[in-house]
């Protein structure tokens, strides 16, 4: 591990409400317990997952709070958060539709699936609908290549062998579900637009 001697003295304000705080604290304790005590900072990825589960995305204040709880410099948290594509650095829609664009899905018509999604939602890949309901994005290989084309819904749900009919049904069903409430945003200026880690623009 890098030497981390810049422990912050002043507590950083938590972005969570009490119920979220309880779940975050519980999850973080479990994550810490997985590592030798001198390496508990290894729980950083887990801490970011926990924070995003609660808030839907990782704002600067959220990253600062995670840094405080893990006793690492905020830049270290930002470095990790921007490296991995699952961490969201801006608010997204309450439902996220990720269309796999890698080679097996491509060979089975994923470009048409993406275009059809864009049509139905009235947005381009990388955008969020005006009502905040849907974000459409391209994602790289989901490891579902034999059941192509595949879609990842809300980060964790696989929808496979997608055709026009199942796609329309999926979007209809999602419209009826509330999905995750995003923490307030967006940032006035998005510091990460176009940088590595964002799936937009690829």
């Amino acid at each position, binding site marked *: *591990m890098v030497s981390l001697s810049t422990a912050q003295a002043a507590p950083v304000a938590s972005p969570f409400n009490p119920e979220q705080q309880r779940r975050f604290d519980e999850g973080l304790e479990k994550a810490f317990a*997985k590592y*030798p005590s001198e*390496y508990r*900072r*290894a*729980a*950083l*990825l*887990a801490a*970011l*997952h926990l924070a995003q589960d609660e808030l839907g995305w990782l704002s600067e204040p959220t990253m600062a709070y995670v840094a405080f709880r*893990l006793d690492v410099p905020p830049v270290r948290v930002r*470095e*990790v958060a921007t*490296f*991995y*594509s*699952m*961490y969201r650095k801006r608010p997204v829609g309450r439902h996220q539709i990720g269309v796999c*664009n*890698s*080679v*097996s899905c*491509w*060979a*089975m018509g994923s470009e048409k699936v993406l275009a059809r999604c864009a049509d139905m939602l009235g947005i381009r890949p990388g955008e969020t609908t005006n009502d905040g309901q849907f974000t459409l994005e391209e*994602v*790289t*290989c*989901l*490891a*579902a*290549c*034999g*059941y*192509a084309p595949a879609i*990842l819904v809300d*980060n*964790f*749900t*696989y929808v496979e062998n997608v055709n026009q009919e199942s796609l329309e049904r999926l979007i209809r069903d999602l419209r009826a579900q509330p999905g995750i409430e995003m923490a307030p945003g967006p940032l006035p200026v998005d510091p990460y637009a176009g940088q*590595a880690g964002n*799936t937009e623009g*690829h």
Partner: protein
Amino acid sequence: MAGPKLLSADWDKPESWTLATYRAGGGYQALPKALKMQPQQIVDEVVKSNLRGRGGAGFPTGMKWNFVRKETSFPKYLCVNADEGEPGTFKDREILLRSPHMLVEGMIIGCFAIDCHRTYVYCRGEFRKTAMARLQTAIDEAREAGFIGKNILGSGFDLEVHTVFGAGAYICGDETGMLESLEGKKGYPRLKPPFPANAGGGLFKQPTAVNNVETLANLPVIVNMGGDAFSRVGLMPKNGGTRLFAVSGHSKKTGVFEAPMGITFKALLDEYCGGMREGSTLKAIIPGGASSAIMTAAEADWPSDYDTLKAKKTMAGSGAVVYFDQSVNMAHALANVMRFFAHESCGQCTPCREGTAWLSRLLDKIVAGKGEKQDVDNVHQIARQMETKTICALADGAAMPAKSFIEKFRADFDALVRG
């Protein structure tokens, strides 16, 4: 025709992922047997079995474990690589979904063999609510049954199993990228030596065996049938056992098929996948994931083992086989593959960061109909210059398809360019 089902025998049973189903099919009989053996005896059997790493590199598993065993620094770790993400590859997900206890039993045996008492399963984040939920349930069941924890089955052997998640980065499938990520950092692969198996090179600088999910799932089989018998299941020398081929593309059936290691791509297609789909003729084969060199239809009779394919300048990789039909223009396919590598290059090494992005731009230009003959030549030349100049294998894995697609399907490129 079909070879033995060593890994997928239970897959069609109802609730194949439960402890009850696994035990009914003979599961957890290898573990007590293994715990009565000397750890070195187990590794010796694995050496005899000719089990090769199923993640992509095909390194002999027994040899890797002997490296770790020789180290005198403790603790030692075993890390399970479940960060499946090579385009075309989806067989580890199938193990996690359909027979997670095979992995659990295999990793307990693996840990005992290398004297490891704390193991981590590093899994891609997208699997959390599906494949990894199944594995987590299996781990809990195994702990409840006394297979994980203190003094396992009265042997005096203790083991803790932890699951951790990545967050969407192909590079973390590289073993040292994965170790960095496990330590809570961005997944920059490490310069070697020291290798992960050696002190200073592994997780938290300790000697570490990094093994793929499928590799470990073979361990109960090897303990049960013995290394020699396992080795003989493979059709080619030094390539033991079966392989879970992840087949996608335009074959009649797609999915994961268990076939003897070394089966030819033609036999895999005809005997397991029902041939090509209606109206399709085989045009090209990706033999081992997107980073392997492409094969033509005329090369379909090549055996699929590591050594043959290496000699043929491609690789068996992760066992991900994509059969393309005549509808695919290979320049478009390569442009797709290269967008993936450009997106997933971690940016640490200049030849890879700049090279993959450059190749991707050139190929996008070619498939947009704006390219010239010189652009195709440039793709080939840039790819050659990227090889063997970087810390990890991503750049080589991008160069291999770039070169071979052009060498074997030049007409598809020329049809799109001027000059």
